[in-house]
C-alpha cells in the first residue's frame, strides 16, 4: 500500500540508496528483482507485483513475484497468451487497466481467470526496456478498480528501469555479449533457485517461500551469490541441512 507524504519520501530514498549499493558490487540478479517487487508493493498503491522476462522464443517467464501464492503466479503465467503484460512487452509501452471488467472482450481468458480468483480488479504493466528493445514487464495488481497516480506510475517505471539495468549489467559485459545472453542467464538462475527451493522444501518440510527465505538468508550470511548457493545445493555439493540451519 502506498504510504503518505514524508514517510513515502523517506522510504523511496532509502530503497534507491540500497539498490544503488547493490549495483556497485557483485550481486545476484534474482535477489535484486526480488527486492524490486518487494519495494513495488511497499511504495506503490498496489497489492501484488511480478516481473516477467521474454525468453529466446518470446515466451514470457516469471522471474520474481511479491508473493508466491498460486493465484498471482497463474495470472502472470497466463499472460503468455494474452493480457496487459504481454501487450506491454510487445509494444514496450505502459499498459494500464483501471478496471478489468472493461476489457473482457479484449482479453477474455485473462479476465475470466481474474474473475474466478476474485482477488484483483485492476492491473498495470510497465515495460522493462533498453532503448527500443523490450525485455519484459513489471506487473502491478490491485484489489480495487482505479488508476494509479502519476507519481506511482513514474516511480513504478523507475523501479522497472532499475530492473532492466540490473539484468543487463549483471555481469561485466564481455566481448560480443548481447541482451539475449543476459536474459538467458537471469532466466536460468531463476530455474536454479526453484530447483534448490524444492530440495530445501522437501528436506526441511517447509513451504516454498520459507525455503527461498532460508536460501537467501544463507547466501547473505555467508556472503555468496544466491544462484551460486542454489546451484551447489542442486548439484548435491552443499548439504541442504547447513542452509536450513541458517
Amino acid at each position, binding site marked *: 500500500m502506498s504510504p503518505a507524504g514524508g514517510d513515502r519520501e523517506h522510504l523511496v530514498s532509502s530503497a534507491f540508496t540500497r539498490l544503488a549499493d547493490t549495483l556497485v558490487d557483485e550481486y545476484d540478479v534474482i535477489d535484486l528483482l526480488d527486492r524490486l517487487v518487494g519495494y513495488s508493493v511497499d511504495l506503490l498503491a498496489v497489492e501484488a507485483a511480478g516481473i516477467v522476462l521474454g525468453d*529466446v522464443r518470446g515466451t514470457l517467464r516469471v522471474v520474481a513475484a511479491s508473493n508466491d501464492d498460486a493465484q498471482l503466479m497463474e495470472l502472470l503465467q497466463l499472460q503468455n497468451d494474452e493480457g496487459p503484460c504481454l501487450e506491454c512487452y510487445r509494444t514496450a509501452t505502459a499498459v494500464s487497466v483501471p478496471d478489468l471488467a472493461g476489457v473482457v472482450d479484449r482479453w477474455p481468458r485473462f479476465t475470466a481467470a481474474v474473475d474466478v480468483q476474485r482477488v484483483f480488479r485492476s492491473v498495470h504493466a510497465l515495460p522493462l526496456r533498453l532503448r527500443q528493445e523490450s525485455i519484459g514487464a513489471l506487473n502491478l495488481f490491485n484489489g480495487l478498480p482505479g488508476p494509479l497516480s502519476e507519481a506511482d506510475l513514474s516511480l513504478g517505471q523507475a523501479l522497472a528501469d532499475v530492473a532492466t539495468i540490473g539484468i543487463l549489467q549483471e555481469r561485466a559485459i564481455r566481448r560480443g555479449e548481447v541482451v539475449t545472453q543476459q536474459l538467458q542467464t537471469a532466466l536460468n538462475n531463476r530455474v536454479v533457485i526453484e530447483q534448490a527451493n524444492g530440495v530445501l522444501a522437501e528436506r526441511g518440510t517447509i513451504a516454498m517461500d520459507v525455503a527461498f527465505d532460508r536460501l537467501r538468508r544463507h547466501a547473505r550470511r555467508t556472503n555468496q551469490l544466491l544462484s551460486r548457493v542454489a546451484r551447489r545445493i542442486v548439484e548435491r555439493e552443499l548439504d541442504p541441512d547447513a542452509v536450513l540451519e541458517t
Partner: protein
Amino acid sequence: MAPPRPPPARPVADQGVVTRALLGIVARGGREHALAEQICRACVAGLDVDGAALSLLTRSSARETLWATDPTAELLEDLQFTLNEGACMEAATTGAPVSVPDLAAGVEVRRWPVFAAALAEQAEVGALFALPLQWGAINLGVLDLYRRTAGGLAPEQWRDALGAVDVATLLLLSARTDPDDGYDGGLDPATSARAEVHQATGMVLAQLDISAVDALARLRAHAFVEQRLLIDVARDVVTRRLRFSDDMA
C-alpha cells in the same frame, strides 16, 4: 469503439535461422547422437562457422562427444578432454557462454596455455565459441563452434546461436528423460518454464537422493504411466499429495 491497434512488436527475441530450424526438430528418447548431429549441422549451415561439436562433459559423469561435424571439431573436443582446459570446459563449469574471437591473441593463450599451444600446432582454428546447454543447475553438454579464420560472430548470429542452444537444451533434455523410446511427447517449452516443474524436480531429487536429470525423468515417467500432464504431477509433488519412493514405478 475498438481499442487502438498496438504499434509493431519489438521483442528482443527475434528468432534466427538456426533457432527456427531447431524448433522444427522432434526429440525422441534414446536418440541423443542423432539429435546432436542435427543440432551441429544446423549451426554450420546457418552460422558463420566452419564446424561444430556437441559434447557431454559434466564434472561428475563421463565425457563424450555426441557429434562432431569434421575432424577438426573432433580434435577440439579431444584436446580439451585430454588437457582438461579450454573454452568448452570453461563454459561447462561456469554455465555461461565463452566467446574467443581470436585464439592467437595473448589473452586467450594465457587463459588456456596448453590448449592454445596444442591447438595452434595441430589444427587451423582462428575463433572458438562454446555454448553450454544449461537447465537450471544442470549442464547437459556444450556446443562448440569454430571458424578457421579469427573474428567474432555478428550480434544477430550470436543471438541466433544462443537461441539455438536454448532449444537444443530442451531437445536433449527431452531425449534423456523420455519415459519410453517410442515416446514423442517431448518436453514442451511452456511446461518447462513453470516454476512447479523445477520445484518438484528439486523435491524428488531430495526424496530419492538422485540427480536433477534423473528426478525429472522420474516425474515424466510417472506422468506417462498415469496418463497425466507433467505440470499436474509436478503440482501434486509440490503440494505434497504425491511423494516418490524407491519402490514406486
